[in-house]
């Protein structure tokens, strides 16, 4: 597994405590899981995602991500309507491992309240959280 110093933690996304990231793209937020989360899970073999049109609240489970011997739930970083899901993950779940912030994205959400994004952590706060949990 990666050391914390080896993790990719881009500046242009915001992070949730459950290790999802969210990034503003026009009027939707794109959501995925962080490099830390994919590294902890190991080789991802399956991603279960909601359907476009589903409405979910912040903290609701929006899907699951599976490695060979573990299942992790995915939680909404903000409330809103799912406008798109990354269909490429159906055949290539490994994209979450290889490109967690780009091709491995999971859902697009039209947020009920765009300011909810600001409540998420920036890179430094997330890094502090990770360092804290390592101790």
């Amino acid at each position, binding site marked *: 597994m990666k050391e914390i110093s080896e993790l990719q933690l881009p500046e242009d996304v915001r992070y949730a405590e459950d290790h999802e990231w969210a990034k503003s793209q026009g009027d939707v937020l794109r959501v995925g899981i962080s490099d830390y989360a994919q590294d902890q899970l190991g080789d991802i073999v399956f991603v*279960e995602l909601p359907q476009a049109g589903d409405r979910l609240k912040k903290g609701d489970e929006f899907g699951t991500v599976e490695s060979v*011997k573990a*299942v992790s739930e995915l939680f909404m970083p903000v409330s809103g309507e799912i406008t798109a899901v990354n269909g490429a993950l159906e055949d290539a779940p490994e994209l979450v491992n290889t490109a967690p912030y780009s091709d491995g994205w999971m859902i697009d959400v039209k947020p009920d309240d765009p300011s909810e994004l600001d409540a998420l952590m920036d890179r430094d706060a997330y890094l502090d959280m990770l360092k804290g949990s390592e101790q």
Partner: protein
Amino acid sequence: MRYLPHTEQEIAEMLQAVGAEHLNDLFSTIPDSCCTLQQLDLPDPLTEWELNEHMSGLAASMAVAPEAKVFLGAGSYDHYTPAAAVQLLSRGEFVTAYTPYQPEVSQGTLQAIYEYQTLVTRLLGMDVANASMYDGASALAEALLMAVRVTRRKKVAVSEAVHPLYRRVVNTYFHPTEFEVVEVPYGKDGRTDLSRIGSLEEMAAVAVQSPNFFGCIEDLQAVSERVHTDAKTLFIVGFTEPLAYGLLKSPGGHGADIACGEGQSLGIPRSFGGPGLGMFAAKMTYVRQMPGRLIGQTMDKDGRRAFVLTLATREQHIRREKATSNICSNQGLCATASAIYMASLGGTGIRGLARLNYDKAEYLKTAFHDAGLAVAFGSPTFNEFVIRFPEGSEQTYRRLLEKNIVAGLPLVRYYPNLKDHYLLCVTETASKEDMDTLVREVAS
């Protein structure tokens, strides 16, 4: 005792190594209040000779072929198993291995079950089969629960021509849930009455059995078309006699979404009803909602073909309370037995054997008809069928028991409206002579 290898000397050495004086000291963490005060109140140990004698005595009281002529089917069938299959199945490497959690040293079990899964998909015409369930009854209950998960609907419909004991197990499984089981009556022809299925709007699944409990071959095409008039409702085909699919079009060929049932007839002794084999197969779309273990093909690090338990994230040891089932131990050795049996038969053999079974039952059915007894249902049947005995059938039945002939299963116990109706079964093991005797005795 021959299963306990420790000598007194070794026990003493080991006690010393662990710092205990007596064997009893090893249990010091157990509070006195939990301890049993008496010696175990069990019969004195038997020697192997004595055990053989005792067990042979118990077994001798059972009515079995060839002394008894047992015309019982109803979910448990008498087929001949080749000696080679019996011998192979007794190999300790298969019998005394655990679940193949360590694939490098379990390839025998893994390949055998992968082959079993494949043979089952081919027999049933389905995409994917699991590594087995407990029996046909629990397989049906789990299939119905799976349909509830897939469709997120709360009602399931089960034909009254499904084995009545299976329906009782289904009711046990469903009782504590919020889901509802409705039954679909059978018609005068002994088949499920499609006109009584009702609205499918809230129905997760419709389950029929074919051949059904009366031996009648359901019109699966018609049921399938009716069930699939609702885009979400799943069509479940059950069975108790899979040998029929050596002759009949498979459930998958008629559009079944799930096919499940009992596989005992494929090379597994009846053994008073268990262990048998819950067979379970589905369309690939639903694989992640399936219960039970699955074995998949992969490669080892040197690129050799190898097999491993896979898609385990559905299962209880990973997903715990959200698992697709609580099943852990299944009927692995019985699955292996049925694979050996199916391999022994081969494609040519299973067609020939299924046809012979069909012909034998037709012979007996015709003989009853010719002797003036009523065949209760007009639909085509496989291996078993219902005959209405003349009035006073109970006396006839008892009289035959005294002659060591079990003249089928009295149905009144399961279907109160079917007084004097008996479910009779023959397979390739019944001779023409025995069948002629049966007809003569019942008709006399």
